[in-house]
């Protein structure tokens, strides 16, 4: 009895010890071998792309044909980091590869049309694309947007970026980040022109993927002059397969990616092509960790990276805007796109832009009128000590192109107070007022001189009549000031042109946006012309002798 009880306790203890001992998890290698074996057994009725690839003996990777270091076509062959990774995958699957050329626009449609089996084509993994394709985890690379500029230019952090012009490409997801940091954007359609624009000094700074600039930094002359100032907006790159009929293929690629990271295959290929390896070195450490080096590692949140959250918060009425666009296109056959009404950041930029434009126009008109009176008084004064400096300032202002006057005003303002949108607006109002007011003031002073020669008026009465006589010139420079306000966008004043340029940098609908902008400013200027004509009539009445 005692003996049987002791035996029972001994077995219970043994069972407890066995339950507490670490269980050796299935490795990705074993899981992959099992998956491939299972897929090969289904050749009679291939239900998944993996079975078709293994049974057909061929895989079709979609790769880039003109993306230096990452995917370049060389005659009939392809070279670069991504084609080499695709070759390594084909080799592990034991099949031949047949590359299919893809680009940024075609890589997802070609997957959906079953013209490629998977793509490895510089595709950033973001939440928007998650709905279109199945991304492979872990990611095979990670890029970030880098700010590149001359070595002599001191850029340490985001504070140094505010108010600077940065050359970017339209539609780059990181543009919104630059806008939020108060940088001014100069938009280009093709990334290929950015290095050239840096070299000819049209662009002081350019922002683009580090993978793009990696090629140019291989050039000794480029690397000697330029450097990466800072990086931001990291985005993981993922291979992708079609969302349907590719479950096993996706699983095989997940497992292969784990193995390639763990064994340094990705890293070795990256070193061969001289691309940045910091991310891959870090990932190798991650995938060598016991908790990640398992068959389920690719779903372990502690091991994988999240997709970039790319979608902007829609406005409450975004659906109605979309419906209106559809109705408009159906009714008139015109492609109307209103990006400024669809997302919260765009709407906010747009509304602020309208308000700031109106403030800027009103401010520029008041400043022009004020400076016209001041310059008119000083230039028409009998005191040389007042007249000559005023004449010198007028000649300098007349000789300075308005863009340059604006920049000088902004530089001086920023030397006194830190950059902000309000400072840019104030500097713009001052520059536009000075530039137009000095010219109008010259016309006032000429009227003062002519009235003085006529000898009919003196003192304050003479000056009031001079304003009436020069009313046409004053009005013409007031209109000029109102027309010139969009130039304030050049120094980062957040007026409508600036706001819409920012909106179109991260959304579509450039044609509609700029048409609306032209209509807005033309209408505003026409209203200003009407108001100014009323002012002219009032001023001219003061010149009519009683």
């Amino acid at each position: 009895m005692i003996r049987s009880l002791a035996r029972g306790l001994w077995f219970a203890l043994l069972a407890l010890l066995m339950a507490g001992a670490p269980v050796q998890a299935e490795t990705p290698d074993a899981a992959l071998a099992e998956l491939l074996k299972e897929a090969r057994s289904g050749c009679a009725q291939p239900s998944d792309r993996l079975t078709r690839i293994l049974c057909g003996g061929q895989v079709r990777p979609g790769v880039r044909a003109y993306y230096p270091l990452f995917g370049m076509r060389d005659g009939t062959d392809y070279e670069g980091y991504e084609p080499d990774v695709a070759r390594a995958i084909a080799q592990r699957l034991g099949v031949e590869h047949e590359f299919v050329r893809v680009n940024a626009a075609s890589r997802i449609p070609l997957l959906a049309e079953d013209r490629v089996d998977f793509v490895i084509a510089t595709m950033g993994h973001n939440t928007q694309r998650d709905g279109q394709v199945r991304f492979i985890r872990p990611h095979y690379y990670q890029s970030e947007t880098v700010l590149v500029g001359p070595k002599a230019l001191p850029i340490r952090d985001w504070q140094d970026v505010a108010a600077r012009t940065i050359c970017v490409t339209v539609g780059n997801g990181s543009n919104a980040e630059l806008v939020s940091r108060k940088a001014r954007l100069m938009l280009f359609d093709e990334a290929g022109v950015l290095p050239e624009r840096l070299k000819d000094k049209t662009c002081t700074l350019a922002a683009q993927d580090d993978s793009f600039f990696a090629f140019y930094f291989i050039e000794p002359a480029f690397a000697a002059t330029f450097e990466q100032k800072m990086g931001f907006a990291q985005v993981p790159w993922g291979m992708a397969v079609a969302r349907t009929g590719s479950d096993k293929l996706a699983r095989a690629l997940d497992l292969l990616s784990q193995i390639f990271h763990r064994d340094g295959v990705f890293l070795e290929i990256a070193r061969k092509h001289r691309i940045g390896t910091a991310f891959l070195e870090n990932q190798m450490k991650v995938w060598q960790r016991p908790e990640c080096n398992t068959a389920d590692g690719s779903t372990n949140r502690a091991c994988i990276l999240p997709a970039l959250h790319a979608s902007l918060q829609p406005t409450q009425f975004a659906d109605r805007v979309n419906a209106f666009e559809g109705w408009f296109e159906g009714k008139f056959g015109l492609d109307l796109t209103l990006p400024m009404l669809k997302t919260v950041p765009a709407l906010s930029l747009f509304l602020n832009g309208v308000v700031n434009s109106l403030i800027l126009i009103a401010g520029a008109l008041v400043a022009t009128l004020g400076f016209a009176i001041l310059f008119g008084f000083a230039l028409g004064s009998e005191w040389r000590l007042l007249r000559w400096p005023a004449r010198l300032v007028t000649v300098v202002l007349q000789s300075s192109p308005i863009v340059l006057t604006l920049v000088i005003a902004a530089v001086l303002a920023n030397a006194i107070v830190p950059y902000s949108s309000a400072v840019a607006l104030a500097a713009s109002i001052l520059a536009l007022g000075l530039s137009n007011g000095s010219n109008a003031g010259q016309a006032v002073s000429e009227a003062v001189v002519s009235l003085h020669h006529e000898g009919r008026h003196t003192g304050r009465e003479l000056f009031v009549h001079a304003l009436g006589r020069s009313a046409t010139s004053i009005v013409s420079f007031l209109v000029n000031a109102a027309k010139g306000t969009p130039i304030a966008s050049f120094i980062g004043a957040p007026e409508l042109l600036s706001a819409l340029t920012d909106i179109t940098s991260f959304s579509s609908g450039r044609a509609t946006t700029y048409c609306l902008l032209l209509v807005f400013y033309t209408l505003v200027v026409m209203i200003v012309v009407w108001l100014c004509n009323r002012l002219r009539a009032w001023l001219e009445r003061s010149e009519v002798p009683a």
Partner: protein
Amino acid sequence: MNALPHQLWSDFVPRLLSAMVTNFEISFIALALGLLIGLPLALLRARGGALGVGVSATIISLMRAAPTFVVMFFLLNVLRDVSVFGVKLGMSGVMTVAVSLVPYSAAYAADAGVEALRQLRRGSPLGALLFLPNITRAFFVIVMSSGAAAAIGVPEGISVILGEAALLPSLGDRMIVFAIGIVMFGVPLQLGLALMRWLQRELGRRMMPV
């Protein structure tokens, strides 16, 4: 010894002068196109009957109200994607800026043209010749406005000045660069204005009854 003056004279000033050729190129194109559009509008306004006057006055006032900077961005972003009979209307940067200045130059040429025709009708050919100094003034206004091209990446004078200034850490050095820019743009402008004043004075003198 401060290396800045040497660097400015040996590198910056030659580059600026070379880039300013683009400003004059833009201005010549804008003025030529402006005259091409503005003079027929002036004729229509002077001799086109009620309808002609109405049409030309509307077009001229619209062109006068169109802000150059916005027109430039409109051309850059809208017309580049428009095709006519399969031919894309996309223009080079220089041409985009030049065309954006056409509404101003055409409206100015039309106004000056209307005045010249009025003087001719009054039997004053010398008064009509004032058209020339007026157009000279418009040309220099356009040269100064062409600096807006810097905003769309056209390598002209202003973009060279701004590019150079951006690399200088001290405010004083940047101001020197800006001052050189003002002198470089100002000298042709002041010479042009002096020429215009001389022309006006000469014509005025000849118009005075003996």
